[in-house]
């Protein structure tokens, strides 16, 4: 576990750009097109652990290759898509999931966009209402002005 993290960190700090990714290789692909399509689908959602923000479907790192083959092996063994993902996550942690789960603190991540949208709408509605209420108040004279007006009118 620690070694893998160290590897990720080390790669993250090495000045280099990702090499052109050759993604999935023809030799890895399954003969059954339906199964292969499922494999591609799953691969697009799994992160290549030693790459920067690439899915195993896009990466040409050897680890990505191993994972692609593993995904296909599980599919051939009759796993459902969820079972395959579960199998990989059990071995590599939730770091491999490009789509974060909705459990625990991740709810903040998922809910923050809609929540902020609603908050923005609420804030705007509040400002509008306050302004509408505030407007006539602005037009009204203060007590001091009323008194002055009264004296002027008396004269």
């Amino acid at each position, binding site marked *: 576990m620690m070694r893998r993290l160290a590897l990720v960190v080390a790669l993250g700090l090495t000045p280099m750009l990702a090499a052109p990714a050759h993604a999935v290789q023809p030799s890895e692909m399954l003969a059954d097109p339906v199964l292969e399509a499922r494999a591609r689908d799953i691969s697009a959602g799994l992160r290549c652990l030693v790459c*920067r923000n690439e899915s195993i479907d896009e990466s040409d790192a050897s680890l990505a290759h191993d994972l692609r083959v593993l995904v296909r092996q599980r599919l051939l063994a009759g796993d459902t898509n969820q079972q395959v993902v579960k199998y990989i996550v059990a071995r590599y942690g939730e770091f491999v999931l490009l789509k974060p789960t909705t459990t625990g*603190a991740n709810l903040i991540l998922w809910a923050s966009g809609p929540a902020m949208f609603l908050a923005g709408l609420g804030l705007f509605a509040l400002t509008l209402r306050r302004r509408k209420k505030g407007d006539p108040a602005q037009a009204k004279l203060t007590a001091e002005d009323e008194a002055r007006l009264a004296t002027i009118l008396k004269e």
Partner: protein
Amino acid sequence: MITELGHFALVLALAVAVVQTIIPLIGAHKGWPGWMAVAEPAATAQFLLVAFSFGALMWAFITDDFSLKLVVENSHTLKPMLYKVAGTWGNHEGSMLLWVLILSLFGATAAMFGGNLPPRLRARVLAVQASIGVAFYIFILFTSNPFLRLANPPLNGQGMNPLLQDPGLAFHPPFLYLGYVGLSMAFSFAVAALIEGRVDAAWARWVRPWTLAAWVFLTIGIAMGSWWSYYVLGWGGFWFWDPVENASLMPWLIAAALVHSAIVVEKREALKSWTVLLAILAFGFSLIGTFLVRSGVITSVHAFANDPRRGVYILAILGFFMGGSLTLYAARASAMAAKGVFSTVSRETALVMNNVLLAVSAFVVFIGTVWPLVAELVFNRKLSVGPPFFNLAFPPFLIAAALLIPLGSLMPWKRARLGQSLRPLRGVLVLAVAIGALVWAMQTGRTALGPVGAALGAWLVAGSAVDLLTRTGRGPISTRLARLTRLPRAEWGKATAHAGMGILIFGICGVMAWQVEDIRIAKIGESFPVGQFEVTLEGVHKAQGPNYEATIADMKVTQDGQTVALLHPDKRFYPVAQMPTTQAAIQRSVMRDIYLVVGDKQANGGYAVRSYIKPFADWMWAGALIMAFGGFLSLTDRRYRIAVGARKSAATPVAAE
């Protein structure tokens, strides 16, 4: 020698910037015209000094001066001249020098065209602009000095990352930086207005062109980066939700919001404090972007120059400028009372909705980008946030904004009636739905993405056309068409940019929904079907490039026996960097791109070949360019030219003396 002069010029620029920060601010506070007037010559001097410094570094790259550490690390005698020039900014130190060059360029431009600004505001704007410069000059001189020499210069350099040796990428950073740094102008205006305690229509008229120009540059820069990744990475991806891409998308979204809210300030004197906040945030996101890219705090495909010490320093700059300006904002925002009132249904409200949607979408990108960091630091969870998250969380807000555009742009100011504004759009709505339905019926697949994209695109393009037409008033259609040419350029700019948005959306949806992919091992002479085409691998040969070795495939694409294209994808190997790259061969056309990539030779003698049909791919970049062109059209509008003209006529008597 020239290198030392360049280094010295940079130090001088720092000194000038310090003077330009302090003296005009005091002058503006005390009302001393002489002290305020220091800002303009200082801004010009600063620009000239940085330009000289930048030129000196470029000279070192062009002449292969391997006594310079930076040149050794990033260049090589065999590198083509274009990339020696572009190599100046193709690395961390040089790109930061480009950053301050553009910063000082904007400062000098503001000094030059700022003739009709109130002197106090002008002095403050230039002082704030210079203070940003001070921070970044110190950053360059102390953590990323490009002018460091080597005691023992080697005979040749280590070369440049071959992936960066591409015309698309050579000019992508300057455009992006023009955008990022252009937003510093909006920031300087916002802070100056906060110090002044006044925001009015004239202020908005000043901020808008700078923001619009920055937005246009950002649009072009982002489009170029996406264009580059499309043909260089070998599978035609165009957007990866990579932290570095997100770093450019966030300021783009906020700048787009700012451009719209500044209209409300200019025309209606409402939304003032919100607009000032947006101006601060827009530059804040630029700084965050710089921080993300330069620190490598979030590992990313692009982080080719990262160093924690630099990251901490940029974080300090970010903290200082954002903390300072937001504190000032908190203290002064209440002074900026809105004058214009508007009802719930009005163009103002539509623009507020646009702002809310754009700000929220920027926020979604932001939280998705930093979430892995937050999760690790706060919740001790090591996780990833990738494209599946963004593809789900981001588009709804943008689609909502796109749906709103034609409606909002037809609404009158102050008070509108929904039914009345919708009436001219009935035809557009029918058209959009019909096109969506037609596409749905025609496609063989199952995805809703294509029809939705087509309908949205039609809604935006036709909606923009109707928007223009309704501005021509009443009368026979021929007179109305004649009036079209006389509409203000801002109207044309707005309609063009909105239509470009529609084309962009359609392109993205089209390529994502209807792409055809084929991956196989092909033997020489073998033919195989890809979509409606037949692809043949005719031969493979080797060739020698200027600084690489190439393996080139000759491939023929036919349709119904007719040859459609002869394409030559190649695979390159750069011996200096010991790195391979792929060059996809693409035959572009309006309806689809044919995209071929050749891979490694296989054990059985065949080659790994990838073939893609990418429908409407070029519509994405066309859409982005049309959007940028719309912004440019709006920039040339009469009311901005008049402002410049007024300054000129004021200046003539002096020149005549």
